[in-house]
């Protein structure tokens, strides 16, 4: 291994801050480029942002805490339905609706965490599935509130800041979503660098070591579930505002499994990985699934197998590795 690390890396506040601004600027730039390049696909791009929030929220659980979950749709759906129901009942301010989605997601995260953290390993995974399936059935049954299998419709969110209508072309919705994503991303960068974020990383690696430091795992993990729920809930609320429909698919095993696939594709434990994975997966799905949905399944399946066998750290992890190799080569060549 690399025993000859060139210099001790001292994390300086200004440098990490600079890098974060660069990252945020890059996301904003890519987002705006999407706005100019694909003006006819803004509804789809808004959905990408909404799902990106879901995948980011899953990364907090899987990537930063090491808890495998196939039920993240429960949190996303909670936010979508809460925002949708609130909107139908006359709360139409988009910002407020996002907050309602976040709150609903956070409460669901608290519940889900409290249940899932009772078990470990496979039973834990099964609990996550059972929870999302249970909510799916509940949402289907409670059709008087949720619209059941027809979906919840009839929302008309108020203009953004009282100025920008959520129009047919979805411009306001997209830019609103992009702004939300940037804010959430910046906050999550901060959270993952907080003492709390470091302890979560430690818990993922070795819970026994953390308990030997005198730290209880349960409240830490539960807190992360709440944060994750808030983020996923905002994603769901964004989808509700943008499409003005909430369907049963927003609280489903399928969306949960897809989110996990996107996360793994991008690379777990990196916030950027979550974004990269979402964009690539959804773009490919958009193109290939339109041609033949079964080809799409075969492709996703093959990609998943390839990732597990050849690139377990996902695209971003593999890129990192590549970048490290390249810079090291250059460093050697420069001597």
């Amino acid at each position, binding site marked *: 291994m690399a025993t000859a690390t060139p210099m001790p890396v001292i994390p300086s506040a200004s440098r990490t801050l600079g890098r974060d601004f660069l990252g945020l600027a890059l996301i904003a730039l890519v987002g705006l480029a999407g706005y100019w390049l694909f003006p006819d696909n803004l509804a789809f791009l808004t959905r990408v942002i909404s799902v990106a929030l879901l995948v980011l929220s899953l990364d907090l659980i899987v990537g930063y805490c090491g808890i495998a979950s196939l039920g993240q749709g429960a949190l996303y759906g909670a936010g979508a339905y809460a925002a949708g129901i609130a909107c139908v009942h006359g709360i139409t301010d988009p910002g407020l609706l996002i907050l309602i989605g976040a709150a609903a997601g956070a409460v669901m995260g608290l519940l889900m965490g409290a249940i899932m953290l009772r078990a470990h390993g496979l039973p834990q995974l099964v609990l996550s599935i059972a929870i999302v399936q249970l909510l799916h059935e509940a949402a289907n049954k409670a059709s008087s509130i949720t619209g059941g299998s027809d979906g919840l419709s009839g929302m008309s969110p108020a203009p953004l800041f009282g100025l920008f209508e959520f129009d047919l072309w979805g411009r306001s919705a997209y830019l609103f979503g992009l702004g939300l994503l940037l804010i959430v991303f910046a906050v999550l960068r901060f959270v993952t660098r907080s003492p709390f974020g470091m302890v979560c990383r*430690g818990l993922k690696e*070795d819970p026994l070591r953390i308990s030997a430091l*005198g730290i209880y795992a349960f409240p830490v993990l539960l807190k992360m579930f709440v944060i994750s729920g808030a983020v996923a809930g905002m994603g769901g609320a964004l989808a509700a505002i943008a499409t003005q429909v909430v369907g049963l698919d927003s609280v489903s095993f399928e969306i949960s499994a897809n989110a996990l696939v996107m996360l793994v594709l991008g690379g777990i434990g990196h916030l950027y990985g979550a974004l990269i994975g979402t964009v690539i997966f959804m773009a490919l799905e958009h193109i290939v699934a339109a041609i033949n949905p079964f080809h799409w399944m075969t492709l996703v399946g093959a990609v998943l197998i390839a990732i597990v066998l050849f690139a377990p750290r996902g695209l971003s992890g593999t890129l990192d590795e590549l970048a490290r190799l390249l810079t090291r080569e250059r460093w050697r060549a420069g001597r």
Partner: protein
Amino acid sequence: MSAVFAVSHLSKEFGGLKVSRDISLAMNEGDRLALIGPNGAGKTTFVNLVTGRIPPSAGSVHLAGEDITSLGAVKRVRRGLVRTFQVTRLFPDMTPEEHVVMTILQRLGKATRILARFHGDSAARDEAAEILATLGLTEVAHRKVATIAYGQQRLLEIAIALAQRPKVLLLDEPAAGVPSSDTPRIEEALARLPASLAVLMIEHDMDLVFRFAKRVIVLAAGELIFQGLPAEVARDPKVREAYLGSYAHAGS
């Protein structure tokens, strides 16, 4: 003066099999006690009982006068009963500084704050730098643990334990797996542990035991068969029979 750490009549049965029988010992401030015993003597069980990872079948554990028998592992750590691990348990992607800072933040009740920057607590970083310096880890303080030598990882285990400011420190084979060229650095670190700290060392290496410990206890088949000065261990007939006899044949 009352004992800072006392174990009385501690026993553990697993389905009728007695793995710890009626173990009692007491330690005062500044004690340097070594626990030795052949493989299968029940040392690991003893550590697990004392640290609260498994509940005892009978007996009690007292720390600084308080009965901690019914407390869980985390609470015991918070009361000042700290351990190191026989096989290092560190986070390969974090730096030694990050390990120690996390430990200090926990001691100060700030380890799980969300609205703070981990690297932004300069007081904690200064203290961490100081601890790492006393153990000679300054050079590697900012390298990922996965890339530093195993001997340095063992020293880091001790650094973490010190950062917890324990009342009682359990060292579980602190030199295990370290190449013999590096053991002097470990011994040096052990010699410089705070004088008032009560240290219980579980160790195989008899040389290390004789140099470090003021008192020795011997565990065999789950039972405490000897308690006394290091110089007396070798002469005790029970110990010779249970342990040193076979050790002498096999080891020296």
